[in-house]
């Protein structure tokens, strides 16, 4: 209760201050809309020309895309601003203040860096999912809705772990911004299409090494009734456990990292 109330207080402050710089807020929201819609448009263009990619139709691929976008935006609300700036905050010693508060450092750090810029993405993501459900005639049963929520939660945890794990190395090497670009942004771009279109190596990579395929590809298989994956069909049910495990590991590594923090001279 204390944590929730404290979060609300911090989040309110964050939202208010972000809205105070209205110009910046609108530009950022607009840039997010454009960035994600160009992705959609690319998928649409490609698929209207070729009808299908790896046997997946337009709305099936859009379904993949929407799952990734929605979980990225939900996790990003809490972990984007905080972890993208972590290397800089470590180098500049700003992190000092995080370690001297009467709440857990991760909680405090996330609360004080909540981002207000993703609201448009939620709307787009949910709308696309609804359209896909309709176009693909996925039955809207209670089970499916609960399962979708579980999948989104699991996806968020994977995304959150991705934000954390690709930036926490900054505690050791100080400058680590390129790790996030490489191991998060770049590798995740494989998720735009069903991973079955890629070579086996890449499918292994996004399943076992950096298991981003559990964000969209495997759970989508369940909803689309597909069993064309290279690996065991059981994988389509594993998003939530994989997410929980990854997030758990990420928090452990974070805890080791903060004890390696060296601050700066002042």
């Amino acid at each position, binding site marked *: 209760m*204390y944590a929730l*109330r*404290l979060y609300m*207080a*911090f989040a309110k*402050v964050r939202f208010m*201050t972000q809205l*105070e710089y209205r110009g910046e807020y609108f530009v950022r929201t607009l840039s997010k809309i454009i960035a994600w819609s160009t992705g959609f448009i690319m998928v649409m263009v490609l698929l209207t020309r070729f009808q299908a990619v790896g046997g997946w139709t337009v709305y099936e691929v859009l379904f993949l895309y929407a799952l990734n976008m929605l979980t990225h935006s939900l996790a990003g609300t809490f972990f984007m601003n905080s972890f993208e700036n972590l290397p800089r905050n470590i180098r500049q*010693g*700003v992190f*000092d*203040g995080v*370690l*001297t*508060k*009467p*709440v*857990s*450092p991760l909680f405090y750090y996330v609360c*004080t860096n909540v981002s207000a810029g993703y609201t448009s993405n939620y709307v787009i993501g949910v709308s696309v999912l609804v359209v896909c459900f309709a176009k693909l005639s996925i039955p809207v049963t209670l089970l499916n809705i609960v399962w979708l929520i579980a999948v989104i939660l699991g996806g968020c945890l994977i995304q959150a772990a991705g934000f954390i794990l690709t930036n926490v190395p900054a505690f050791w090497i100080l400058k680590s911004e390129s790790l996030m670009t490489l191991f998060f942004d770049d590798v995740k771009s494989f998720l735009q299409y069903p991973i079955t279109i890629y070579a086996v190596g890449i499918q292994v990579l996004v399943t076992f090494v950096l298991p981003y395929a559990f964000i969209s590809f495997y759970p989508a298989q369940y909803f689309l009734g597909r069993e064309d994956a290279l690996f065991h069909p059981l994988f389509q049910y594993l998003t939530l456990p994989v997410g929980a495990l990854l997030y758990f590991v990420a928090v452990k590594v974070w805890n080791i990292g903060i*004890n390696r*923090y*060296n*601050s700066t*001279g*002042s």
Partner: protein
Amino acid sequence: MAIIEMKNVCKDFKIYKRGKGFWGGVKSLFARKDEIKSAVKDISFSIKPGELVGYIGSNGAGKSTTVKMLSGILLPTSGDIRVNGIVPSANRKQNAMNIGIVFGQRSQLNWDLPTEDAFELYRRMYRVSDAVYKRNVDMFVELMQMQDFLRKPVRQLSLGQKMRAEISIALLHDPKILYLDEPTIGLDVLVKDRIRDFIRRLNAEKKTTVILTTHDMTDIDRICDRIIMIDQGRLISDTTLEGFKAGNAEAYNVIVEYTHAIDAPPDPRVKLLKTIGEGRALFTVDRQAMTVNEILEYFSRAYKITDISIKRPEIEEIVRNLYQKMSPS
């Protein structure tokens, strides 16, 4: 019972050496040499509740590193730290409730928030009761004269206003210990005075233990009862303020006003530093070598005196002499 206990504490940092110039930089991409720098070497001290301790040393002596270890930000490489009975870096949340911390060089306040709202946020975070909150805010606002800027966003405050707000916010939860890391840096004389008075007042009323690092020796003189001095990470002195002044002031400054000099044999123990205009001169005399009686005797033989003052040097001067004797920073 000590409230702060440091036993044989060391802190090493690993520093990566980069080669010189472009090719050196390229080379160190592949073969990196690292070097261990010891910032704090085997420091032990213990502080009792309610003490006002000045923690001094030249730039890079290890002051901030010590404060950061005491507040749980940094882990010591070896040694044992107890603050109010707990290990700070192992119990950060609990430790945070016991301490207040102010870095003069770095703001803790949210830039976009009015001071009053920042107070509210901290009250929530530290779970300060309404009664304590109201009492403290009233006291701080009055003593620090903050009425005029409570509603202004922090980014519009002057440095002096900001520092007053920083100190107040660090004390909202009635911490037993207050760490002040260069709190008066860059402030004008009036604000400095206000802050110094405030800290003494706080210590008198709430028995708050204070550790203060500063380069302003007037801060030390006005606030502290005890001085711990470190150099290159080593503790080199730990005494009361009076003991520090007496023990390290090796010379008296003697100012003599005279109508004329009498031809007396010069004494090697008395050194003329400078003449100040006509009939006025400043001497320095080794305290070990001459008693005050002997000094008076010497000058009354050497000059027709109209006025004389014999003074121990100010703390600023003592510290300057000590720093000069130590290695250059």
